[in-house]
Every structure is written in C-alpha cells, then in structure tokens.
C-alpha cells in the first residue's frame, strides 16, 4: 500500500479540471452507494447466491475509465459491479440482474458474476478466477487483427495473479504485442488468504519482466494516480508497444462475499484503511480544500446519487422474474450477437 516504494502517488498526479475531479467523486460515490444498497437487498433476501462487493476499490475503475476512450474494451472477474457502473452501464439493469429479474442485463440469467454489455464494450463478469485474463488478451487480439488502435483493460485480482493461465497469457501477449492492459487489483486478500501467505514473490507487476512486459505499481486509493498510470499504459498500448501491467494497490472493506466472516484480518486494519486512506474521502478533501466545490455542491451530488441508487433498487424489485420460457432461450444463436 502506501508503504510500497514502487507505488506512484501524488508526484504523478495529472492536471485535472475541477469538473473532472467532481465527476470522479460522483462516479466513485455511485459505486459505493450502489454496493451498500446491494448489501441491504442481499440482507433482505432479494439478491441470492454470491455477491462480491467493490466497496473500498472504487478509485481503481474510476481512475482507469478516465484514461479510456470510446471503443476500448474491458473484462473482469466476478467482483464486477464497480466496473459496470464505471463504464457507464445502467445501475437499474445491473441491480435488476442482481435480483434475478427480467430487466437485468442478462435477463436475470447471469446474476452478480455474469453480466455483459455489447454497447459499453464490457465483456463480463467471469466466475472462474483468471479465466478472464486470456479472454482479455483475445479481445485485444481482435482489435489488433482488425487494425484499429483500441486497447483492452483486463482486470484481475492478486489471487488470480497466481493462476497458470496468467503466465500463459503474459507470454502470448508480449510475443504478439497485444494492446492489453493487465490491471492487477491487489486488495491484499484472495478470499481469506493474504498475499504473503500465497506467494514469496508479492510484487505481482514485476512478474511481467520475465516475459518482457513493462509495468508498475500504483496507489489504488488515489484516483488521480490511477488515472495517470492508466494514461501511460494506454499510450504504451496504442503506440503498438505491446501489453502493460498495472498493479493497483487497493483494499476491500467488505468481506470477500456476503457470507464472509472476515476472520483473517483485524477490525482495526479495516478501520484504519477506511479512516486514513479512503479514496472517496481523499477526493472530497481535494475538492473542498482546493475550493473546487462547496459542502453544498457535494451534498447535491450525494442527493443525486442517492436518488439514482434508490431508483435502481426500486426497479430491481418491480421488474418481474423472467418468463419461464427464458429457461430455453439463448443456448444457441442463429446469428452471432456481436455480428448483429
């Protein structure tokens, strides 16, 4: 985290406008309030199965989306709600998928871990740890094959970083100079196993060197540092220099999933992160101390977010369950949907 010498922090901050900073605040707050609401709905029995919340990690996706352009692709694991909101997917559709309703992004057939948006170039939502990594490289391959300059953000966690297919993918990505940004969201715990209990080589980004892939560690609690690193990575990929690894040092406040008692870390550790390193509070202070926003401006944003989230929650309750015939649809395609 902050003690990591390699992590870039304030020094690498880009110039941003007050409006951009406010937008990041808003986008991060949307994710947090959305996830809090999802936690409530889970407690009420409206959301079932696995539900992995993104609270604490908001600066990662908001910072990187700030570095992305239209047409860039993204793919991630099962902790995916934040990524979907950050790339502009509709909170109503995401929440209704969590409740397993017809109005959800996958018509209620995917659930928390399996959502997609062709329109927003979001390719899932994958439930098998690290399976999205070669898929992300394949998406990047498709753009290279077509000869455009789009890049793919391939997100995975510190747990996935130890999977064999990550090594296989690094090798191919550098071999073929694929425009793929590997984003390792290091939240320090693979479910209940801390990084130091899982590997003797804890600097995940440095593993890229074995394959010739450039990379760096980034302070993931600082949205501006993430954005700056993201822009550097994007420029590297768009210039045809091959893949880039960003190890983004972050922290998950909630348990691995809703059923996680979180006995593997102390309450104090979590509390300290929340109080001293919170990414949203950091931007809030930048806005207030820099005179870019008043308390009242921020309250207005808070209110706006609260309304969006409440509306999403209402929609997710009112949207009907999928029709029974839906059991038998979407097993085979007559036309490939991505061609349609």
């Amino acid at each position, binding site marked *: 985290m902050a003690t990591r010498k390699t992590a870039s922090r304030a020094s690498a901050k880009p110039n941003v406008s007050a409006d951009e900073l406010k937008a990041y605040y808003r986008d991060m707050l949307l994710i947090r309030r959305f996830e809090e609401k999802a936690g409530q709905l889970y407690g009420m029995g409206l959301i079932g199965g696995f539900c992995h919340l993104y609270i604490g990690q908001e600066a990662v996706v908001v910072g990187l989306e700030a570095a992305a352009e239209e047409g860039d*692709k993204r*793919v991630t694991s099962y902790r995916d709600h934040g990524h979907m909101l950050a790339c502009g997917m509709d909170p109503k559709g995401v929440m209704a998928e969590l409740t397993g309703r017809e109005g*959800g*992004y*996958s*018509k*209620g*057939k*995917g659930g928390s871990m*399996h*959502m*997609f*948006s*062709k329109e927003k170039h979001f*390719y*899932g*939502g*994958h*439930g*098998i740890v690290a*399976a999205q*990594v*070669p*898929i*992300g*490289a*394949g*998406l*990047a*391959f*498709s*753009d290279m*094959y*077509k000869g455009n300059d789009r890049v793919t953000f391939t997100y995975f966690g510190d747990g996935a970083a130890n999977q*064999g*297919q990550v090594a*296989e*993918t690094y*090798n*191919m990505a550098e*071999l073929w100079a694929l425009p793929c940004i590997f984003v390792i969201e290091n939240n320090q715990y693979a479910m209940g196993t801390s990084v130091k209990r899982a590997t003797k080589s804890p600097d995940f980004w440095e593993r890229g060197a074995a394959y010739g892939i450039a990379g760096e560690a980034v302070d993931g609690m600082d949205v501006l540092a993430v954005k700056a690193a993201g822009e550097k990575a994007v420029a590297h990929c768009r210039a045809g220099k091959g893949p880039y690894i960003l190890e983004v040092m972050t922290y998950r406040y909630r348990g691995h999933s809703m059923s996680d008692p979180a006995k593997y870390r102390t309450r104090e550790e979590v509390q300290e992160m929340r109080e001293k390193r919170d990414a949203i509070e950091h931007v809030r202070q930048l806005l207030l101390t820099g005179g870019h926003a008043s308390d009242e401006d921020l309250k207005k944003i808070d209110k706006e977010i609260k309304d969006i989230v409440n509306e999403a929650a209402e929609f997710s309750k009112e949207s009907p369950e999928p029709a029974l015939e839906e059991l038998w*649809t*979407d*097993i*085979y*395609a*007559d*036309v*490939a*949907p*991505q*061609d349609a």
Partner: protein
Amino acid sequence: MATEILMPALSPTMEEGTLAKWLVKEGDTVSAGDILAEIETDKATMEFEAVDEGIMGKILIAEGTEGVKVNSPIAILVEEGEDVPEAGAEGNGETAPAPVALETSEGKADPAPATAQPAPATAKSNASPDWPEDAEMVKTTVREALRDAMAEEMRRDDSVFVMGEEVAEYQGAYKVTQGLLDEFGARRVIDTPITEHGFAGLGVGAAFGGLRPIVEFMTFNFAMQAMDQIVNSAAKTLYMSGGQMGAPMVFRGPNGAAARVGAQHSQDYAAWYSSIPGLKVVQPYSAADAKGLLKTAIRDPNPVIFLENEILYGRSFEVPKVDDLTIPFGKARIWREGTDVTLVSCGIGMTYTLEAAEQLAKDGIEAEVIDLRTLRPLDYDTVIASVQKTNRCVTVEEGFPVCSIGNHLSAYIMTHAFDYLDAPVLNCTGKDVPMPYAANLEKLALTSVKEVIEAVHAVTYR
C-alpha cells in the same frame, strides 16, 4: 547378396509416405548410419538411415514420389563386387510397381494406391441429398478435405483465422493446415506456444471481439487443459449474457485413439462434449462430410467441437466437386439401408460398422447403417425411424462405456420407441480401462468388427 531397402514406417499411424529426396545415388558406397533419403510422413519430414553397408545398387522409387506404401521396396543395396543392376531394368518380380512421381502443384490427384483400405459403402441418401447427384466426384483424403474447407472459408471471410501449435510454419502437426500459411500469411495462420489453456481462452476472447477463430488442438487429449475455457467461457456465455454475446468459433483436432500412443493420448471425448448445452459437436467419418461439416462449423455462430481422427486423416473418399459444399448439422447419413438391425455410429466407429454390415450381409442379415455425423444436434428422428423399421439397434463407438453416446441413445430409444424394440439396445464401445500400449491389449481395448457382429447376432437372435 542384394538387399531390398523397404519404405520405413516413421510414425505410429503411417501407412504411406512421400520419398522426398534421395541423398545417395546409384553406385555410392553406403555405411550403416548414413542418411539415405528424406521421407515425408503425414506429420513431418524425417531422415532415413542405412542399416546395412554396401553399394547403392538401384533406386527403385524416384524422389518426389508420393503415396509410397510402408514396407514396399524403395532401393536395392548390393555387396562390393556384386553386379549393379542395369539402369532402367525392372525390379525382381517381388517388387511392387513404383508409383509415378506426381507434380507437387495444386489440384493433384491422390495417388490412391491399389492396396488402399476397402472402399467405403456407397451412401444412401436419406431425405435430401447433400450435393447434386450429378456432381463430379474427386478422390480426396480427409486431411485434404479439412484443409480445403478451412482455406475456402478463409477466402470467404477475413475474420476467420486459425491458431494452434505448429499450424503455420510446420504446416500442421498432422499436416492438416498444410499450405495455409503460404496462402494467408502469418496474420491469419498463427503458431502458438504450447499453451492450450491460454490460447483456447485467447480464442474465446477473439470470438467475443467479433472474429471467427479456428483453434486447433494438436490432439483433443491436450484440450483437457483448456476444458474450463471451452465449457465455462465458450459454451455458457451466450446464456449468461442473456443473448448479448457468444463465442462463434471452432475447436478442432484429432480425437480418440491413434495407434500405440498409450493411455494419455488415446481418449475419445465425444460423450464429454456432447453433454454440454451451448456446444455443438461434430464427428465426421468421410472426407466429404469432413469438408462440408467443417465449412458449416466455421460459419456457425456458436462454439463447435470438431472431432477428427488421426487414423482417418489419410483415408480417401469421393468428395463432390462443387463450389460451396456445406452439410447441415443434425442430419444423419444412411450409408446402407437394411431391415434387420439398425447400426448407429459416427467417426472412426463407422469403419467397424460398415465392415460388420458387409460381413453380416453375407450371412443374410441386412443392417441399416446410420452415421450420425453430428452429436449435438443429434438426428434422433432418423435413428427412431430406423429402429421402428428394424426393431433392433446396436451402437458403435471407441469411447469409454460409462455415460457413452451409446448409453444416451439407448435411453432415448427406450423412451421413444420402447414398443418397437424386440431386443435390448446393445452398445459396442471401448473397454472400461485406460488405453494400454501393448499391441494386442490395445486391440482388445477398442471395439471391433467381431464385437459388432456378435452384438447383432445377439439382438437378432440368429
């Protein structure tokens, strides 16, 4: 004493090869271990060493000759002082006539040596014919048919590309992708590192991104490393995304037992893949079906498992010379009509089935032989209609017996044609053991013509 040098077998399934180049000439002195010639097999070009010493008396097979049968004489070695046969003189009676060297240009005919496998039975058309009945037929190997299918589809659609181990510069581990690199270049014919899990997943991502990947596995045994990407990512995404995106792609390669390669290289995965909703599964037997079904597979907007067979690669069949041969999925082919028993098979299983049907006919038992061709979708109607006619059924496959394709068909027939059955449905399968290496045990582990005939006698009670 003159010694015949015979065409060597350089791979487990090699039946014939190309004598690519002689490295000695007539009259040269040869020591044991000297490299005599380069032999091209279905997999590779190999150097062929002398076992004995002597003088190269006569070269019987000219370099560049294709289709030289294993164990046929290719040269005569003489001892020092022994007369060298005159150039131009014919061999000694025992020598098989040397095939004529063929031009290595496109469109060459298959040499089709006289001693090839028994000619397959003539297909009987079920419902509609797969191609115009007056189409010119060209003898083609399964290997060439598969290559032609890929080449035609790659010409037709720029988003089609092929990737896998040794598909490009090596020209294919089994030479199925031969010539594709030359025609389509390295952008579309891509050698991968040995990374099955990784490149299968990369292929899925490329399909999500709008391309039409053909992912070749050197054999489907290695695809077990990629099983998660095939099943969890490729097969399920269309459903999980509510129809928003899927993986239009082909996973192909040789499947099942080859010859003498042991337990880890000899498994038939037809039943495994056929149990997965979201996958389509093809297992062709003939070259025409291999071509027409692969073209259909490449155009299909879903993930298709295309199960080839190493032993069938070198077999020749009549393939119609038509502009665009596509064969629909879910349409079985009736190879032989009969009234006494229904034999259902596909892929390599058809070799046992057709041979058994021929022998049974001599005993007055007329078997109807159905080649399913695709296992998902499966042409249940053709099977049921036939069982309603014959009242008996035997299935034939090389896969393991537990949860086999035959088990599934038996259950289906019991459910849908119970009252028509005059005997239990019997399944001829591989044995419930890992594939042994020893030749006699390997033969025992696979099903056989004899087993099929016995099963037919059992169900016909005669």
